[in-house]
């Protein structure tokens, strides 16, 4: 047995634990390392979900109750009392579509920011690709999103119906945009948060503002007249805004005709590609910062 081991190992090459690589090979190595530990990623996502609702009688139902209550509040307060239902046709669908996408982004980024710190015990004592922890937050948020998505699909199927033309592709693209940008932010912020604990509080505040920057409780049609040329472009450069509108474009039926921003699909494609570049940069930065995680936590 001992000599088998010696034979096997003498065939292996010595591995450099901390190779000095240039940017692209390093990224590929990181992705390969994460892919190798995908099973662990799956288990960690499961742990997040199971631990959250363990011992609660309603369990997973809770992840439905929260958005539905939010929906009801917004519907009654914004829709009825403030009269949004009169200005936005099918207001609940418009609202729920935006809410679902926003919740995905918000949960992923918020949990992602704290993910390295909340897994301190593992980070300090084991050698893992640490990207796994922010990715776990994305996965757990994604799971909640899928549950909410089911409701959205059922609701849309019974009310306005889907736009089954080529335009349907706005919807998957919107989800890709959210996931991509959430990944970039989660990677970056989780690493920064190890060195500066303010980050998590800052993120909380910025996310609160972020919710009102996208057309969820109001419509693009209501906001557009208040935004002049440059401001409008800035507003439309927000990936979340574009993803929300792309989704609404598919699931929401605005009668009468609605002033969608020009080149919505193109804008979405562009922010997605930029998002991919952001993930790449965020991962590089993460990789630099993570070398001292075990010491800084």
């Amino acid at each position, binding site marked *: 047995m001992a000599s088998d081991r010696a034979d096997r190992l003498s065939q292996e090459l*010595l591995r450099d634990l901390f190779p000095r690589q240039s940017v692209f090979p390093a990224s590929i190595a990181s992705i390969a390392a994460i892919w190798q530990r995908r099973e662990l990623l799956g*288990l960690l996502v499961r742990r997040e979900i199971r631990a959250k609702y363990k011992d609660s009688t309603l369990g997973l139902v809770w992840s439905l109750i929260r958005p539905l209550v939010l929906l009801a509040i917004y519907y009654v307060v914004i829709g009825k009392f403030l009269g949004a239902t009169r200005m936005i046709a099918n207001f609940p669908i418009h609202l729920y579509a935006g809410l679902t996408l926003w919740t995905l982004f918000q949960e992923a980024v918020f949990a992602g920011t704290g993910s390295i710190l909340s897994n301190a015990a593992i980070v300090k*004592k*084991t050698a*893992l690709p640490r990207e796994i922890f922010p990715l776990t937050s994305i996965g757990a948020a994604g799971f909640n999103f899928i549950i909410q998505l089911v409701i959205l699909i059922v609701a849309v199927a019974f009310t306005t119906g889907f736009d089954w033309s080529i335009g349907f592709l706005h919807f998957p693209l919107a989800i890709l945009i959210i996931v991509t940008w959430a990944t970039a932010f989660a990677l970056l912020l989780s690493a920064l948060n190890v060195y500066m604990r303010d980050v998590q509080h800052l993120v909380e505040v910025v996310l609160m503002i972020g919710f009102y920057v996208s057309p969820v409780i109001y419509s693009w049609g209501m906001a557009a007249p208040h935004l002049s040329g440059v401001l409008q472009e800035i507003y439309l450069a927000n990936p979340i805004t574009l993803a929300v509108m792309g989704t609404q474009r598919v699931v929401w039926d605005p009668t009468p005709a609605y002033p969608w921003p020009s080149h919505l699909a193109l804008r979405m494609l562009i922010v997605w590609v930029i998002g991919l570049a952001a993930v790449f940069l965020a991962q590089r930065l993460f990789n630099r910062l993570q070398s001292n995680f075990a010491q800084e936590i």
Partner: protein
Amino acid sequence: MSVEVVRVTDVNKSFTIQKQKSLKERLVNHRAGKLHEETFAALKDISLTINLGESVGLIGPNGSGKSTLLKIIGGILSPDSGQVLTRGRVAALLELGAGFHPDLSGRENTFLNASVLGLTRTETERHFDEIVEFSGIGDFIDTQVKFYSSGMYVRLAFAVAVHVDPDILLVDEVLAVGDEPFQKKCMDKIHSFQEEGRTIIFVSHSPGQVADICDRAIVLEKGALVEDSTPIVALGRLRRDYQQVIAAERTEQETTSSPHTAEISRIYLTDSLNSRHDSDFQVVMPPGSDLMIHCEVQFPAAVPDWALNIAIENFLGQVFVEADTRSTLAWTMPSQAGTLRFIVTLPNLQLGEGDYSVRVTVRDDQDRTLDMLPQAGYFAVRGFKHVSGPVYCEPAVKFLSE
């Protein structure tokens, strides 16, 4: 054939000592922060290689960089400069139950923890029954771990860790937990790992464990590698350094109080059979030899009624023989100025096989220490394997007829 599994080359690591974590503190104290920022060199130019099958103890005082080095070899912390090469599967047993979630059952945590340590799901499934068996958890495996006693928690975690099948196992003090039967189980497992030809790298403050487990020990002091040798020599070095620290503290208090001075200028050992010398020991002798301790003590002025104390210790500091001219022998030592040379003989020394050191102390009439050499000399006892244990004898048997 020796297979190199770890090669560390010129590794340096320093930490910035900086307590300010919040943005406000950083902004407010920006200037001051830079000034007060201190770097602390945790490791300085460390180079070493470790072969497959070796069991290496990393020892040293607190803050000497042992754990940092272990974390760097484990790939948990990256060095500022230098290179670390490894071969084979590395498992770091730095904390038992890393990632255990209190709300999940023992079963779920087993799979999770095994995955953290690098086992695949199929491998975990294959070992699952063994893990439960080894841990002795039994039916509690499906109970949430928050209801476990701390002993059960540690047993399950250890059971998972030892089933990871590493080529290189990194261990950091974790064996200091659990009750005695469990500690014995851990030790047995470590020994079987050694028989299976795995490499073990082990950080410990327990000289007994290092002596028991390791065949090589590395002493780190203030981030530098100061000794890389057999456990006996390395532990001896560490103990000498510790005792120097203690002695320095003591003499600071005591020499001032004593009006006399004396210096032990030379000590060497011989035995009655003129046994061979080697690099580690001045004398390697069989049990039952006479041990001669040759002493040279300098007295700048005559010290009235001084006392000499000679103790034989093992490298754990356990005393086997202690002779004191005042308290045990009631001898009167000659009081004179100048250099005094003499030989102390410990005749017919029936010590068991082992490695020993000699401590020599000179005290004045008020029992204040004038000088002490904690490890004045080393000797080893070898041969005649009739018995084991610290005391030697030659047993005989006589059968009585009915």
